[in-house]
């Protein structure tokens, strides 16, 4: 069963609706007790980095999720801020991230090439895939997704970059490190492109 972590951030209902349409079983997890029979985890999110970490702590689910991901190697997919908190740290906040994908979250404003562009980076952007990125099977041509963010993930390890998008500069919009995956865009609001990605994740 795919468990969507409901820690008060992101559009949990949109994921449930999408998985239902795909004919895949998914459920909402609100407490650590809900995390039984977990085959996959989705960590949604929207908003600020520290706020996301705080809410995850307050939800009481963090130790259980960490154990599932780190010890049991359950595949996890972070979305938007849910992806950013996979990093070691963020320029947006003071709290440490989960550290599952070594890297730092940075602001477009801090980069000369993107500082003058409108922020947030909002709308549909084309995505260039790295070869053999399993999340993107079937999306090799013409992949585009909906973005809404002002910070981006900078990986310490280049092999963790699964896809890049361009907004003044080329930034990592998808990461993959072992069983840990993250995407900066919103597959739950990206029509058939997003549906295919979530299906790929479910079938990993």
């Amino acid at each position, binding site marked *: 069963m795919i468990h969507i972590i409901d820690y008060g951030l992101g559009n949990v*209902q949109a994921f449930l609706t999408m998985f239902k349409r795909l004919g895949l079983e998914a459920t909402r997890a609100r407490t650590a007790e809900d995390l039984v029979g977990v085959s996959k985890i989705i960590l949604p999110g*929207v*908003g600020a980095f520290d706020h996301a970490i705080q809410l995850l702590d307050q939800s009481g689910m963090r130790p259980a999720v960490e154990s599932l991901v780190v010890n049991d190697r359950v595949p996890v997919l972070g979305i938007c801020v849910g992806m950013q908190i996979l990093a070691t740290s963020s320029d947006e906040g003071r709290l440490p991230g989960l550290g599952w994908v070594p890297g730092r979250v940075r602001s477009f404003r801090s980069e000369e090439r993107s500082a003058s562009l*409108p922020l947030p980076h909002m*709308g*549909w952007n*084309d995505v260039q895939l790295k070869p053999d990125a399993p999340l993107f099977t079937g999306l090799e041509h013409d992949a*585009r997704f909906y973005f809404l963010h*002002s910070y981006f993930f900078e990986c310490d390890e280049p092999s963790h970059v699964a896809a890049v998008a361009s907004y003044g500069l080329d930034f990592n919009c998808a990461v993959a490190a072992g069983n840990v995956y993250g995407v900066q865009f919103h597959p739950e609001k990206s*029509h058939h492109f997003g549906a295919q990605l979530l299906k790929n994740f479910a079938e990993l």
Partner: protein
Amino acid sequence: MLRPRITPCLLVHKAGLVKTVGFKVPKYVGDPINAVKIFNEKEADELIVLDIDATVNNVEPDYRMIANLAAECRMPLCYGGGIKTPEQAKRIVSLGVEKVAISSAAVENPGLITQIADEIGRQSVVVVLDVKKRMFSKDYDVFTKNARYNTKRSVFDLAVEAEKLGAGELVINSIDLDGSMKGYDLTLAEGIRETVSIPITILGGAGSLTDLEALIRTCGVVGAAAGSLFVFKGIYKAVLISYPTLVQRDELICSLRHKS
């Protein structure tokens, strides 16, 4: 490349969808949920739904309707109408809405923009400014309460203020051109693009895909929003929901690709 957004804007009045002309004479065009389903099938870039009764009737947003729309909507959704407090905005986001639009309340109480941005993040705060051209001037007045009240404040001043206070996006809505299908006010659009550095969406006047293209040529990456264009067909304005295909959208933005 970041693509310009092509955004249907749907108006809710007495639980039905309507389309206005000059903010007046609402014409019934169908059921909101049904329209959302059609735009899902057409894979629209995003959707704006504005309840035009809530503020003038001084009632709470219709949370049940919003929840139903959000559950159905498979594209990013922006809801506006009747939002006066950060708590209301937070509740609407929790129903599965990506962006919350405020208009009259933001103009009357600009601090609300900051309060809502602090609660839900500035990326989800959309400020809608309804504007009319000033006589014998290049400036535009901002109106509130469905164009009933002239604040006599310049759209450019309020745009700067909204950005400073925490708006993540501006929707500039031309009262003069609403429902006219004569094309966007490109001078206004260009002026706003040069004034702020947050994403902008232009609404009012689009009557053809050529009009969308003209706006995209003028402003680059912009939101091109429209009502009539996507709900009416033909000179007699028969109600028929339409939306450009992915291929048509690629053609619309090819002028941008050549530029970059």
